């Protein structure tokens, strides 16, 4: 078979490594074979390509980020102020314990074992960890130096070539992770297209976002939208406003997007997330329900509605939603944990321990494990087994020594068992770990008045 055809076939079958290999051999024979060069570029891009619309982190915690205009915005107009919902416990990761893990929220977890006070010194920086990882991954895969020396390319020449410019851009942006070079190419390509190609404008915006030039990205996206309505452009614009900490602007973009793409699932999802972030749960649930009408298998929507019912004192309804997720084939520690909690509160006690058992079996992350043990302690308390509860809480603290709620609960239990001094010291630890948590303060006051 002609090696070119073989390479193409491999590419189509998503066997990118094989494709790259064939192309490399072709290029050794004929270094100027544009078709092979093009295919290799595409294959290498595809190999590491991720859907970066969802992957971009909202970056609300960036220490140096002063893109947000208001330093102290009014409640309900910013992502910063409404982090904690009054009724929902929040894990140290900053997401509701039994909520759904989103691509973005996973990055917000402190990766290192630094204690919580050090969190401020360890912000997430603009060039996301993923981008850096992608870059190194691409370089590692090449034994004899990088495939394309971007700095040696005559970008102006390639920018004028409509066939090569786009794949080359994607290669630079995704495979090498060099947003600056990608930006240069995009700038020249937009000029070559006389500012008439919306695709390039979106790419420009992508580069600007990677370089943390948020305002420039906004301009490019808006100008792209004037030429062509596209869901991706809308989604990126929403992200831009989230980076600027202007959720209401983002909501406005959602609304205008819905006028053009009515019933679009992605935009409804964005609205749902926005509502959740702003603490407007009813509207969030409304949007998630809209998502489910269009796409009955959207796990995020199901799970979020489930959380809503759970905290709305309707654990039976929540149980139905979680069982739906389970029926769809999801199989994770969080899900079993949530199922266990729902069972507990809807009095289906025979399933509680089984669910938690499964959850513990599946949990690998110590933080998740700690949360599960913490939840198990509730199951023990509700069955009146204080000793078991104490054990659960201790196990929780073994997994995560910074779990303030666990310390607080331990203190309460110790107080019940008649050990006020021990209770007091646990209380103090809890306050030290999370000074903003109201419970240990109240408990401590109570304890002091007793003694």
């Amino acid at each position, binding site marked *: 078979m002609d090696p070119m055809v073989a390479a193409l076939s491999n590419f189509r079958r998503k066997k990118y490594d094989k494709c790259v290999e064939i192309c490399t051999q072709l290029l050794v024979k004929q270094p100027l074979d544009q078709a092979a060069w093009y295919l290799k570029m595409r294959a290498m891009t595809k190999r590491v390509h991720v859907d970066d619309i969802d992957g971009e982190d909202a970056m609300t915690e*960036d220490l*140096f980020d*002063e*893109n*947000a*205009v*208001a*330093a*102290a*915005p*009014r*409640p309900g*107009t*910013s992502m910063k*102020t*409404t*982090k*904690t919902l009054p009724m929902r416990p929040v894990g140290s990761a900053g997401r509701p314990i039994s909520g759904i893990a989103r691509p973005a929220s996973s990055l917000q977890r402190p990766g*290192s074992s*630094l204690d919580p006070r*050090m969190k401020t*010194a*360890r*912000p997430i*920086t*603009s*060039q996301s960890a993923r981008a850096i990882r992608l870059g190194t991954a691409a370089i590692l895969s090449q034994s004899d130096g990088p495939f394309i020396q971007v700095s040696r390319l005559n970008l102006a020449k390639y920018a004028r070539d409509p066939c090569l410019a786009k794949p080359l851009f994607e290669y630079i942006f995704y495979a090498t992770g060099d*947003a*600056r070079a990608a*930006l*240069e190419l995009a*700038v020249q390509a937009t000029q070559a297209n006389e500012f008439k190609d919306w695709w390039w404008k979106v790419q420009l915006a992508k580069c*600007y976002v990677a*370089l*943390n*030039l948020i*305002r*420039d990205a*906004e*301009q490019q996206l808006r100008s792209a939208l004037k030429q062509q309505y596209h869901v991706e452009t809308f989604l990126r614009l929403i992200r831009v*406003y989230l980076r*600027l*900490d*202007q*959720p*209401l*602007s983002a909501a*406005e973009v959602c609304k205008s997007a819905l006028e053009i793409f009515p019933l679009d699932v992605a935009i409804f999802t964005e609205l749902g997330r926005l509502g959740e972030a702003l603490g407007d749960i009813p509207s969030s649930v409304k949007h998630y329900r809209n998502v489910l009408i269009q796409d009955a298998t959207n796990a995020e929507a199901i799970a979020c509605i489930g959380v809503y019912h759970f905290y709305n004192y309707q654990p039976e309804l929540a149980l139905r939603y979680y069982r739906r997720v389970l029926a769809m084939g999801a199989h994770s520690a969080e899900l079993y944990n949530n199922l266990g909690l729902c069972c507990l509160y809807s009095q289906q006690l025979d399933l509680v321990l089984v669910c938690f058992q499964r959850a513990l079996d599946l949990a690998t992350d110590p933080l998740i494990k700690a949360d599960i043990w913490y939840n198990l302690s509730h199951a023990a308390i509700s069955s009146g087994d204080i000793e078991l509860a104490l054990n659960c809480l201790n196990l929780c603290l073994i997994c995560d020594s910074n779990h303030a709620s666990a310390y607080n609960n331990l203190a309460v239990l110790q107080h019940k068992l008649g050990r006020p001094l021990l209770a007091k010291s646990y209380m103090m630890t809890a306050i030290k770990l999370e000074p*903003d948590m109201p419970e240990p303060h109240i408990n401590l006051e109570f304890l002091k008045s007793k003694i």
Partner: protein
Amino acid sequence: MDKIIRPVFTLELNYKIVPGLTTIGKYDGTHPCLTAATTADKILIHSPHRKSAIVTGRVVWSESNREIATLNINQSITALAAGPLIPQDDKDILIVGTPTHILAYHVHDNRDIFYKECPDGVRALTVGLFHDSKSPMVLSGGNSTVHGYDAVGNELFWLAIGDAVTSLILHDYNKDQTNELIVSSEDYNIRVYKGDRLLAEQTETEVVTGLAALPDNRFAYSVSNGTVGVYEQDIRLWRVKSKNFAISLFSYDLLGQGHSQLITGWSNGKVDCRSIKTGEVLFKDTLGHGCAGIVEGDYRSIGKADLICTSSEGEVRGYTTTKSLSTTPSSGLEQDTVRDLLAQKQALLLELKHYENNSKVNEEFDRREDNLESNGVIPANTRLQIAISANDNPKTKNHVEIFILTNNNTVIKAVIVFAEGIFKGETHVVHPQQSKLSTELSVQLYPPKDNPVDIHIKALVGYSGSNQFHVFEITRQLPRFSMYALCETKGAQCDSFVELRISERLQRMCMWINQNFLLAHDIEFETGPELKICLKCLRDDSYLSLLFDISGRVVIKTENISLAADLVQSLANFNNLESLETKVNLPKEEEKIRIYMEKLTQIQEARMRLGTDVADRLGQIRGLIVRAEDSRVNCLSEMPKYYNELKALNSELTNGYNIRLANFNEGQETMKNINFILQKATRLRAGAKSSKMIGYCRTAIKNNNIDGLIKIIRTGEL
């Protein structure tokens, strides 16, 4: 008589405020919030009503003061304005101007209304109804242009001003119930526009820094040399000069007179209240530091607006209307009056004594001639003769000469010339040495601009030995084009010309010439097909020739576009022309604009590249700081390495910044030059033609159409 008006409230913001950058807005639709730019490039919003509101959630208000919230802008703030921009929404929108961008921000909802790049910079902002737009508009004055934007950020309006805009107000100037735009710029001018059309133009002696609308179609202005004045249409009611300069002008009825007074905040912290009609000071107070701004708002929630003065150190004082209290005892008033009258009497007596002395001397004139000098008395028939001419002497620097001569043996001790905008300051004194005193004196003037100037001359006349001198006061007017002299040589023929058509008799043209030029003798038109005058500009020795055809064709030959524009405007005014079309051929200016436009394109390209450079380095810095701080915990020995890297990166960044700054300044300069030429080119036409041309220029600039722009300059059409 000083009335006692005490502040009704005072408070400290504990932030340093940039003078001039304060405004007030009702961001939630009801409560006014004082808004100011701090010296740390943040915007401070002070909301006194916030005190009573229940603090919810974890809103982080300023720790020291719960009433203050700050906004990050990340660029230096150059202008601030607030006003209702969105139709059918009573909430005010905050408009922030920076050297490169304009941001309209909805404070209440924490969202952008629009954010636009303004390559021309933003120097002044105002919000209101203007032109033919039904909804409010943001007007932003830049380094050489004024842009108008609607509520979504579409550009509705464009105007070339020719120099940096310092202040903008929307005001009903000519009592037609619609707003006109009043623009002050760094070329000392105040211009009034109705839409694209220039209604009036006033020239001041220095850079006009501020404007304020007053009731009854008047407006106040302040000049960087410390002058404050009030105009009613094109008549200046009064002006005063101070050694400090005015930061903020405002109209408010502080004294409860039923009509407003002009409140002025000065750079030394003085706040005074003057009568609008006369400029008389009615009340003054002093803030601890320089005044930063004066605004008006219902700050105590009592239903009546207070006057709020802010100082640059963050001190805020509120005043309210205080009815004139007759607390001053009547006896004090009487005493004052008596004292005034006594002083007047003293002065009159002194004057009378002089007169008596003088007449006595005149009677004894024949007998005691030698005694004249010692008495300081001059003959009654002494007269001064004054000649003003454009001096075209190749030996000395060219100037306008005022020649003063007495008609007898008295000498001129000194001459004081008062005029605006000719000298630094407003007076010029010529006093020869004692030994060189003579009966004649010449004063040299160098008017920098082509403007009609009133000169008030005070000549001190007496004898060289006398102690007292007689003062002669004379007022003369310098015509608009005084720095031009007739020259016989035809001069090198230049191919730059402006051609227009005015159907008027040539006699009338002669009248115009005689009125507007300072020529040795009046030009008369006898017969012939045309009238041709060759002139030499005394400033730069360039030639100007005017040719008036009997058929009405007028050709102005000069290379100087602003001179040509001034001549055209003057002609149009003289003949009351509604609209005037011209053919223009100025190859030098065309060449210039071509060069500038090309340069601008290059600069913009370079700017983009430099911008990404900085962003890239910033990204690296973020990474390094995190790593350095990590190593502080994990591995101390690594820390210096990261911080050294940071240091190197930082100095690189500083260098990059300097390059960017140079690039930016060059860009601004180029932009300014282009707009200068365009503004002059629009002035080469008059009336409707001129405003039509502005529209064409805007389209051509937007599309970067150099050839189109040159065609517009030539013909006024695209």
